[in-house]
C-alpha cells in the first residue's frame, strides 16, 4: 500500500469538555478530523465541534451521520459537508467547489461566498450561502433546499430534479437549464433562462414556500419580490420537431 495518513499517527486525542471539543486542523489531519466525527464524537457525547485553522482544506466534515453542530472557523476547500446527514455545519468563511454535495439531511451554512456547484445533487436538508455562489449552484439537485443571500453564476440549477433554489440576488446566464421538478425563486435580475425553463405566475403557495425558506435560512428579505422559474416540461419526451434547439 502507498502511504496514507492514518488516525493513529500519534496525535494526542482531543479533549471533550461538556460535549464541546475543538479540533485544530493545523495539528490534526483531515483524516483524523473526519475519523473523530465518524466514530468517536457520538461515543463521547459530543454536541459541538469547533474546527480551528481550516486554512481552505478540502473534504472537511464529509459523510457525517449524527446530530452534531460543527463550526468551521475560517475558509474551507472543496466538498465541505459532502453527503451530510443530520449534522449542522457552519463555515465562518468562504468555501470551494461543491459544498454540501449530495447532502441528505441537516444544514450547511456558509457565512461567506461559495465557489462552483454548491449543493450539487443534494437529496435533502438545507444549504444556506449568505454571500454569492458561483456557477452551477444547485446542479442536479434532488430535493435539497438552497438559499443564497447574494447572486449565483451561470447554469445554476442545471438539470435540477426536485427541491427549491432561492436566490435573493441576480442569476447569470442559462438559469434552470433542462429543469425537472425543482422550483427556482429569484429576487433580482435574471440574465437569461436555460432550455425549457420559464417564468410562471406566483401563487399564494409560492409566497408561503419562499417565506418558510427565508425563515429557515435566516435571510431577511421581502417574499413579494421574487419571481418563480420552473420547467416548461417540453423536454420530458423526445420531440422530433424540436430541431435540437434546446
Amino acid at each position, binding site marked *: *500500500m*502507498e502511504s*496514507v495518513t*492514518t488516525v493513529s499517527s500519534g496525535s494526542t486525542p482531543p479533549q471533550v469538555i461538556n460535549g464541546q471539543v475543538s479540533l485544530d486542523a493545523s495539528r490534526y489531519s*483531515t*483524516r483524523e478530523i*473526519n*475519523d473523530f466525527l*465518524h*466514530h468517536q464524537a457520538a461515543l463521547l457525547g459530543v454536541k459541538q465541534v469547533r474546527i480551528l485553522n481550516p486554512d481552505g482544506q*478540502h*473534504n472537511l466534515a*464529509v*459523510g457525517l*451521520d449524527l446530530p452534531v453542530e460543527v463550526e468551521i472557523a475560517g475558509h474551507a*476547500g*472543496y*466538498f465541505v459537508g*459532502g*453527503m451530510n*446527514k443530520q449534522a449542522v455545519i457552519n463555515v465562518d468563511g468562504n468555501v470551494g*467547489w*461543491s459544498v454540501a*454535495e*449530495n447532502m*441528505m439531511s441537516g444544514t450547511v451554512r456558509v457565512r461567506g461566498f461559495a465557489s462552483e*456547484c454548491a449543493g*450539487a*445533487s443534494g*437529496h435533502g436538508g438545507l444549504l444556506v450561502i449568505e454571500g454569492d455562489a458561483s456557477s*452551477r449552484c444547485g*446542479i*442536479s439537485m*434532488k*430535493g435539497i433546499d438552497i438559499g443564497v443571500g447574494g447572486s449565483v453564476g451561470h447554469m445554476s440549477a*442545471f*438539470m435540477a*430534479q*426536485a427541491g427549491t433554489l432561492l436566490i435573493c440576488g441576480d442569476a447569470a446566464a442559462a438559469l434552470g437549464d*433542462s429543469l*425537472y*421538478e425543482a422550483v427556482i425563486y429569484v429576487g433580482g435580475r435574471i440574465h437569461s433562462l436555460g432550455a425549457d425553463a420559464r417564468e410562471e405566475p406566483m401563487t399564494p403557495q409560492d409566497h408561503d414556500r419562499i417565506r418558510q425558506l427565508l425563515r429557515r435560512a435566516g435571510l431577511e428579505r421581502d417574499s413579494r419580490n421574487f419571481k418563480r422559474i420552473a420547467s416548461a416540461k417540453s*423536454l*420530458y*419526451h*423526445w420531440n*422530433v420537431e424540436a430541431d435540437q434547439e434546446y
Partner: protein
Amino acid sequence: MSEDRPAPGRHLRLEESYSFSSPVIDYIQHAAEHGLYEIRGLGAKRQLPSFDDLVFLTASLSRYPLEGYRERCETTTLLGTRFAKNPVELNIPITIAGMSFGALSANVKQALGRAATEVGTSTTTGDGGMTAEEREFSRTLVYQCLPSRYGFNPDDLRRADAVEIVIGQGAKPGGGGMLLGQKISPRVAKMRTLPEGIDQRSACRHPDWVGPDDLVIKMNELREITDWKIPIYVKFGATRVREDVKLAVKSGADVVVIDGMQGGTAATQQVFIEHAGIPTLPAVRLAVEALEEMNMFGKVQLIVSGGIRSGADCAKALALGADAVSIGQGVLIALGCNSPHYVRQQTEKIDVTEEYHRLGTAPGYCHHCHTGRCPVGVTTQDSVLEQRLDPDWGATRVKNYLKTLTMELTTLARACGKSNVHHLEREDLVALTVEAAAMAGVPLAGTDWIPGRS
C-alpha cells in the same frame, strides 16, 4: 404473363451497391421517415479486430503444461490493493458489469447477485442506485458513482464493497445515460427522483467535479466518507486510453476499468454505438502500457470489458495484462436474451418468437432493450414481462455460464504451463491478422513481426 416479369431466358442482374447497400438504404429510409436518429440497446454489431484474432502458443517441448484435472490452477483475484484497507477478493477474475435497475428488472438483479455470490465474484449497480435485492443477494457489490447521481447516498456507499466512478462506457464514451419513458416505472421513478414515464436523459459530466485535478479531491472525499476502507475503481470508455489511464492513476484510482467499443448499453444512439471509441483489443494493450510507463503495473489493477464472451476471451485479456474482465451482454444472453423462448417453472419452454416479430426483430437479432418490451423478461420494467425471468432458473444459468468460462480459462492457462491464471503473459499469444498484431502488440503468427514495433 405479366409485364413486370423478365422475359423467359433473360438474366436478372441484381448488383448491390457497397456504398448504398440494403442496410444503408434501410437506414436512410428510416431517417427520412422519422427525422430522428435510431436508439437501440446492446453494443457494436460491426466486425472488429478482436480476441478471436489471437491464439495461444500452448506448451509442447519447450514448455511444460499442467495436468488438466490434477494440478491446481489458481484463479483468486485481488482488486484494489493500492489504498483500500479492504481490497476486493474474488474467487475468479470474471466479474459482472454495471447494469442499472431500470434497464434490468429486480428479478434479473437478484439472479445476477445469487450467481455471482455462488461462484465468488462481484456484481455492480448502475445508473439508478442500489436496490435492496442486489445488496441482499450479492456478497461483493460494486457501487457506481455516475454523473446522474440517481439514488446516490452515503448509506449505500458505506454498504458497498467498492465504489466505481463512471466517467464513461464503451458503447457511448462521452455520452450520458438514457432510459425511455416506458421503462420509468413507479419504483424506478422514485429511486431516481423523476416523474414517471418521462424520457430520461442523464448528464454526461459529473455535477460536482470537472477535470482530473478535481477528481483527485473527489476521490479523497469518497475515501474520507468510507474511512479509506473500500477500493475506488475508475471506469471509462476506450478512446484516448493511454492518457486517460494515466490521469486516473494520477488521480488516485485503485482499479481502472476500460470498456471497449463492443460494450453494451440499454439504450443509446446507434451512431454512438458503431462510430465512437476503439475496440477492446487495442484498449487492453494501451492501458497496460500506460500502467507500465508509470511503473504502476500490478499496483493499480486493470479490469477489461466490452464484448467478453468466453473463457478464451478472458484468458487473452489476462495474458495481455488485465487483472480481471467484466461481462454485461454475455450474462444477459445466459439469462435468455435473444432466445426464442423463456422458461417457466425451470423446464417448460414458452415460445415468444411472435413477440420478437412484433418488435420488428427475431430471436438472435434483437437489440430492443430500450423499448422495455423484452420478450424474455430480462431488460424490462413491465410487471407482466419481468415475471418471465424466474430468479432461481436465472441464477443457475448465470452460475453455469461463469463456471464454464472459468473452466475454459484454466484449461488454456494450464496448457500454457501456468499454475495461476494471472501468470498468463503476452508472450503466450500470437496474432492471426496484421491488424490484431498491431493492436494487441503481439507478433503475427509464424513471424516475429509486430507492426509498428519491429
